[in-house]
């Protein structure tokens, strides 16, 4: 097989793993990343569900695998033009090159919690996001986490909610909430920790065990009901309202810390890439792929493939598995078409 260049847009776990596999198959992937580092959201996370193993462990592994691969950091794609089956790519750094296939791995953005104004993020000091708590676990430097006695987690923030135009489930936040709940309880054993959920979607390997562990070993209290509003009392503590739907009664509670489980949304700026490659969006705003079964790695554009959370919310194991299967699809495409 002759040497083929493949453009990988995005250097998160999906892009890194796709590139690694393509390289293993004897092809020449080129990763374009707009940030100054690889790893995407993984690089900002401290520990991973369901076992709380470190994020840095996985990140190092992915980095090790991609160390011989061409990576262009701090780069944006300014133009892609397809001429006679070859994609001509231009970068913001004024570099130009040609590839035979493109894999879009642009990932996701966390929901901007300010849009759910009733939760008071950005207004009340003690309302933080899942990403900020993860950052606290990493650095232990956040004055808002100050020996909290009562902590609440709100599931489905920006997901399963017509009011923010996101009707889908983000898949990862139930498990993240219980993971973080256990971790914060571990740090503050005297605290009462409540999780406000609508359904606990603990579908993956080891997730249900995490749920049981959270209940049994960490005494995390799961309340079925969505938090409807948050206010601040005169002492600067948070007062939340929710219905305990299993009891059928509304409840109020004062908290020292409220963590919002922000879901996934399409990545910022991905529209430009979509325009260049003629890719449509699905109802959830993510990139449309060619169906839900055998076409998951393909798009309607010939030679344009997808991997990871750019098409729908995904867990890390899902993302890595999809990246591997996308690499296989690209390989088959190049054998038969180029």
């Amino acid at each position, binding site marked *: 097989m002759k040497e083929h260049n493949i453009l990988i847009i995005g250097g998160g776990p999906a892009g890194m793993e796709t590139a690694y596999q393509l390289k293993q198959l004897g092809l020449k992937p080129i990763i374009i990343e707009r940030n100054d580092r690889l790893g995407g959201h993984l690089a900002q996370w401290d520990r991973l569900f369901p076992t709380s193993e470190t994020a840095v462990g996985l990140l190092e592994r992915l980095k090790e695998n991609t160390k011989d691969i061409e990576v262009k950091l701090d780069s944006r794609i300014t133009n892609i033009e397809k001429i006679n089956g070859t994609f001509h790519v231009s970068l913001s750094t004024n570099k130009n090159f040609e590839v035979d296939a493109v894999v879009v791995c642009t990932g996701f953005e966390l929901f901007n919690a300010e849009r759910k104004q009733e939760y008071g993020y950005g207004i009340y000091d003690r309302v933080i996001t899942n990403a900020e708590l993860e950052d606290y676990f990493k650095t232990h430097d956040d004055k808002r986490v100050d020996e909290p006695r009562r902590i609440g987690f709100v599931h489905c923030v920006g997901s399963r909610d017509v009011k923010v135009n996101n009707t889908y489930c983000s898949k990862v936040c139930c498990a993240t909430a219980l993971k973080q709940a256990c971790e914060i309880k571990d740090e503050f054993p005297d605290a009462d920790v409540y999780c406000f959920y609508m359904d606990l979607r603990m579908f993956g390997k080891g997730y249900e065990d995490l749920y049981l562990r959270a209940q049994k070993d960490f005494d995390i*209290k799961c309340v*079925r009901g969505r938090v409807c509003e948050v206010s601040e009392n005169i002492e600067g503590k948070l007062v939340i309202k929710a219905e305990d739907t299993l009891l059928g009664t509304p409840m109020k509670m004062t908290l020292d810390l409220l963590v919002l489980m922000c879901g996934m949304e399409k990545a910022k700026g991905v529209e430009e890439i979509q325009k260049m490659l003629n890719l449509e969006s699905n109802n959830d705003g993510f990139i449309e792929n060619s169906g839900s079964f055998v076409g998951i790695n393909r798009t309607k554009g010939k030679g344009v493939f997808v991997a990871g959370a750019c098409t729908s919310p995904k867990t890390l194991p899902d993302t890595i598995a999809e990246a591997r299967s996308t690499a296989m699809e690209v390989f088959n495409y190049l054998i038969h078409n180029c």
Partner: protein
Amino acid sequence: MIDFGFSISKSSHIQMDNVDLKLFNKLEALNPDISTCMACGLCTATCSAGNFTDASFRKIILMLQRGKDKEALEKVKKCMMCGKCILVCSRGINTRNILLSITRIYNEEDK
């Protein structure tokens, strides 16, 4: 008091800040499995007493967690201690033992 024809309705909210969980914590310390309930409702569906009354193991423990002790104890009274709920519980909770503990712990308080 002069009746002006107005009245104030009591809040229907459970105010968790005012709920005293001392007894529940005692119950939980004796029966740690109580915290693993996942509200599947099997215990209530199979309950011999639940067919005719509002007995429900699931609701009993939920009410105790929310400070609705009186209502919970009313439900406990209707239990016949048949033990069917132990046979079905998805989480393997020793329900009957918990029901006995409740009678002991919460009635001691009455004295």
